[in-house]
């Protein structure tokens, strides 16, 4: 999928897995944080630019489960004595709508015992029509095997990393 000359997800409902969401949050604050924050060290600044192009014009939506997982990971990240990680999350929470599903229902989802509550919420959003963007290989495999709309962001990165 080429993202530099087109807007592939325009007007589409899009959701992000936790790692991709962290890249989006941290990169939006300042791209320099991508290599400083441990959880986004698997990405480059170019990855953030490509992700931004990919989701441009789309309707981004997250689950509270992914936001909470992101919060747990971001709370330890400080920069210049500021809670930089949580500031990034706070900024995003003001803008990105959430779709809630009860833990009761998500814990009965077929993905729950394999991938946990957060990924079950992503699968649930996918089944509601969202396109999931993930770097989680097993989750990608599961969602694509169910013919759900999912993008392995690594496939896009591979075009310039390989």
């Amino acid at each position: 999928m080429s993202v530099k000359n087109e807007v592939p997800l325009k007007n589409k409902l899009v959701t992000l897995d936790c790692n991709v969401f962290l890249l989006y949050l941290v990169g939006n604050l300042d791209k320099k944080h991508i290599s400083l924050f441990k959880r986004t060290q698997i990405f480059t600044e170019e990855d953030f630019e490509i992700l931004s192009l990919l989701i441009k014009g789309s309707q981004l939506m997250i689950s509270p489960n992914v936001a909470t997982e992101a919060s747990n990971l971001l709370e330890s990240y400080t920069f210049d004595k500021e809670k930089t990680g949580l500031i990034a999350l706070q900024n995003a929470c003001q803008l990105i709508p959430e779709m809630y599903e009860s833990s009761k229902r998500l814990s009965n989802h077929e993905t729950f015992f394999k991938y946990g509550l957060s990924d079950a919420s992503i699968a649930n959003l996918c089944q509601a029509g969202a396109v999931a963007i993930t770097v989680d290989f097993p989750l990608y495999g599961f969602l694509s095997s169910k013919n759900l709309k999912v993008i392995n962001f690594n496939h896009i990165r591979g075009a310039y990393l390989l």
Partner: protein
Amino acid sequence: MLTINDLVETAAKYLKSFFPDSDSIQLEEIELTDDNKYWFVTLSYEGSDIPTSTNLWLANRSRKYKIFKIDAKSGEVRSMKIRDMK
């Protein structure tokens, strides 16, 4: 320090050295261990399953998955294993 580009290139070169006919190599996943000692890079590729067939209708290539364990300090590939889809 290894860059993401170095890591992916290292894994792809290693793959090619063992499977020269590997084609359409794709990046699937990158992980860093909690202790920062190792990177795990998963690549997929198309490779021959059976010797070239004269029956063109018989598919003889399929996508395979390999996971590479790379030393974060030295950049040395420590292992290459079949990546389970589970």
